């Protein structure tokens, strides 16, 4: 059930009405648990049951950790939990990847093929809820939070459907207290949730899915296209992946708000970041902060000299890449990000001894240049992320830099090169979506629209929201595509 589907909207409206009609707080919690289970079970009921079982094991182990007197027992139980959570993640998501990689190595060494791939379905959102369970167990182990006594509450923390399949990755210390807090139907939050949901819906349907039309064919057959088309596809994919994921997050935050819960922000206009370090503080914030807290800092962070910091960055970001998917291009993407971060650190330190250069870079034109440079660097690294293999990524890079042999006269508009030897693609759609995104960023950055909007009467605002909803549905190209981050 996609957030942008009519069936989800009907499901959510019905749920919302029943939820706020219930007078008992506990009944609301169990209603949300049941609704979340149903939400996941519409995709696969057996995996929904498995998820509940693994949650129950974590629940018991956390209680055990808290009650046990000796450090050894606590460590043992934490290890059991980590083993169970990561074991499930590895089995479902990474087994075939490791087996096939090993097989390829053996074949390269002259041996015959040994392994067969397992026929397993990767549970939607497994990477997200595994990380949530791990943060809970580690925090209980470290004594930062108390183990949850109420199984219903703990089940809701893991299963809560707005964040279940694509995050944001929720911290137990933020979410569990919210479940206990008494709730009442708050129109301020309902209105806020509505704004989030509509904005997310528009980003997903009108921008992300439209941009996919320009990115997908080129990434599939890069060498069939001309250089300008490949550049356009690269930028289109950058806009697609951002609007797809941040759109999902907005809808998740919006639905959670309407149910009286607050989820953490996951994006903060990352394409306006002036360097790659800032970018990762603005992009998929819940994952970045999780990796920082549970991998980078435990490894030593940046406290033990430059070389160890570099090592820690490489480990953390490579794992970040692997978290995204069981394929070498994802690993390569993570490694590239680590390299960019290392280069940025070095450049940053060097600039401190170059006051004139630093002054230029910090000026308004310099900042704009840094923003553009950061954006292009990230877009270039996204090619590895989007490509199905390194050879496909190499084809993309090749076509980006080396023009295709001139078979016929290149079209004047680079977008016309997107569909070679066919007819004109809907170029207007590209510029429209890109323009909306640019204007959205400018408005968001300056906030100049808020004061006039606040003065508008309620019917006018309601009408505007209905128009936004209508435009999202109308501008969606052809049937909603699944969210990119569902596969992670």
């Amino acid at each position, binding site marked *: 059930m996609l957030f942008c589907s*009519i*069936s989800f909207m009907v499901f959510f409206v019905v749920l919302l009405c029943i939820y706020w009609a219930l007078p008992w707080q506990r009944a609301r919690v169990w209603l949300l648990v049941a609704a979340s289970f149903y939400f996941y079970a519409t995709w696969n009921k057996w995996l929904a049951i498995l998820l509940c079982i693994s949650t129950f094991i974590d629940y018991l182990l956390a209680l055990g950790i808290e009650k046990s007197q000796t450090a050894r027992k606590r460590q043992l139980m934490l290890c059991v939990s980590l083993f169970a959570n990561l074991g499930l993640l590895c089995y479902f998501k990474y087994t075939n990847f490791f087996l096939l990689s090993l097989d390829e190595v053996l074949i390269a060494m002259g041996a015959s093929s040994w392994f067969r791939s397992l026929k397993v379905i990767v549970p939607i959102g497994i990477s997200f809820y595994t990380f949530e369970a791990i943060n809970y167990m580690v925090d209980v182990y470290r004594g930062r939070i108390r183990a949850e006594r109420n199984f219903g509450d703990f089940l809701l923390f893991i299963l809560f459907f707005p964040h279940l399949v694509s995050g944001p990755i929720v911290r137990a210390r933020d979410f569990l207290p919210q479940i206990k807090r008494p709730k009442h139907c*708050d*129109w*301020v939050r*309902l*209105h*806020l949730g*509505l*704004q*989030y949901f509509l*904005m997310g819906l528009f*980003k997903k349907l009108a921008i992300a899915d439209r941009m996919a*039309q320009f990115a997908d064919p080129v990434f599939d057959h890069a060498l069939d296209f001309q250089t300008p088309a490949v550049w356009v596809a690269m930028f289109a994919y950058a806009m697609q992946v951002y609007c797809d994921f*941040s759109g999902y997050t907005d809808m998740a935050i919006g639905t959670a708000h309407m149910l009286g819960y607050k989820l953490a922000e996951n994006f903060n*206009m990352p394409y306006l970041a002036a360097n790659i370090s800032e970018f990762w503080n603005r992009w998929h914030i819940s994952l970045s902060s999780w990796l920082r807290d549970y991998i980078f800092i435990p490894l030593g962070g940046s406290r033990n000299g430059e070389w160890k910091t570099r090592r820690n960055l490489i480990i953390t970001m490579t794992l970040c890449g692997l978290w995204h998917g069981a394929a070498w291009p994802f690993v390569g993407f993570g490694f590239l990000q680590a390299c960019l971060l290392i280069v940025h650190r070095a450049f940053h330190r060097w600039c401190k001894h170059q006051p004139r250069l630093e002054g230029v870079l910090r000026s308004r034109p310099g900042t704009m240049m840094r923003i553009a440079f950061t954006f292009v660097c990230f877009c270039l690294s996204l090619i590895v992320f989007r490509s199905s293999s390194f050879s496909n990524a190499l084809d993309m890079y090749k076509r980006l830099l080396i023009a295709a042999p001139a078979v016929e006269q290149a079209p004047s508009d680079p977008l016309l090169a997107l*569909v070679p030897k*066919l*007819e*004109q*693609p*809907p*170029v*207007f*759609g590209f510029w*429209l979506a890109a323009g909306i*995104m640019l204007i*959205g*960023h400018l*408005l*968001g950055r300056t*906030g100049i*629209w*808020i004061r006039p*909007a*606040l003065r508008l009467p*309620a*019917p006018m*605002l*309601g*009408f505007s*929201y*209905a*128009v936004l*909803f*209508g435009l999202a*549905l*109308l*501008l*969606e*190209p*052809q049937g909603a595509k699944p969210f990119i981050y569902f596969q992670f």
Partner: protein
Amino acid sequence: MPSLFLTSAPKGKRIALWTLACIAASQMALSIYLDQSRLETRDPLYGHRLKHLRQRLAESPNAPLFLIMGSSRVKYSIWPDAMKLHFHNNSTQPVVYNFGINGMGTIRELMHFRRLLADGIQPQWLLVEIWPPLWAEAGFFREARMIQSEDDLHWRDLLLLCRYFYNDRDLLHLALQKCLAPLRSYRDALLSLAAPSLLSPEKRREMQQKVRDTLPADRGGWFLLPWESITPEEKHRAWLDGDEKIKPLLQPVCIDPRSDAALRELLSECRQRNIKVALMLLPEPSWTRGWYTAEAHAVVCAYLSRLHHDYPVPIVDARAWVSDDDFSDSSHMAKKGVPAFSERLGREVVQPLIDDKPLSPAVLFAERDTGQRSEGF
């Protein structure tokens, strides 16, 4: 992207309620607009046929309508303009119109008949195709499948669909979605009106093709068969196709209660409205007739006898009117066979029905066929 803002609770409530109201009102207004003013955009298949029929009726004001309904076998086989009908000079010549639609079985015949009545089309005569493979409500010709792939669903179809397909959740879900969320369901059609440049070339081509497919080849509603099997290889492929799609539905013949109920409902409604009805078994090639087993033949005969007993309407048996050479596949007539067949249908069925004369016993399905395997089967 834009940062969001908070309002006071009362204003938040008003905004949320206004949003819901505006969304609901806009969907409803759009649904009504598409139904009333843009039927061809909303439902090209039905909308263009209706428009064409209205244009035909406008050419002969006050002329009574002789409507022929059925599947693609009717659509491609009956050419009203080839019927050499004779009328007295002082009488108004009726308009004979072919309203055949691909895969139309009895439930869809009833659905489209109701739509036509609701749109002000009141036929005086109705010739309805009956074809045993469509009675099973199974396999390739399952009407729920046909409705999902061919028809658009209107508000007025909902009750009928609920009665006949109450256990088909997918179909009802689709029908509700089309009625309640027209903006999403008819996005492509709306964009083709307002901003065609936002549609992909493939989608634009597909929509143009869809419109072309709904425009009849002549004023009487007849369509040219878009495929013709000419070479022996093509004919063999067509035979194999029939063997796969039609033969399993004849061995044995199953009569789904819904199919029977729809036909009876159609006949009852015609009786109430004083519309003269005839049922018709259209021509089939000998190999298709050979697919009917003795049991299948008995089932068909017994069913038609029962139907004839309950509703004494003429049942025309034209199964063997056309030679095998004039067929393009296991069920559709080739273009070359159409004029002769239409001319004979006009002479032996349409003309007597219009003149209110009894049909010749030679063209009628005879109860005596029951239990014995005639040449037809």
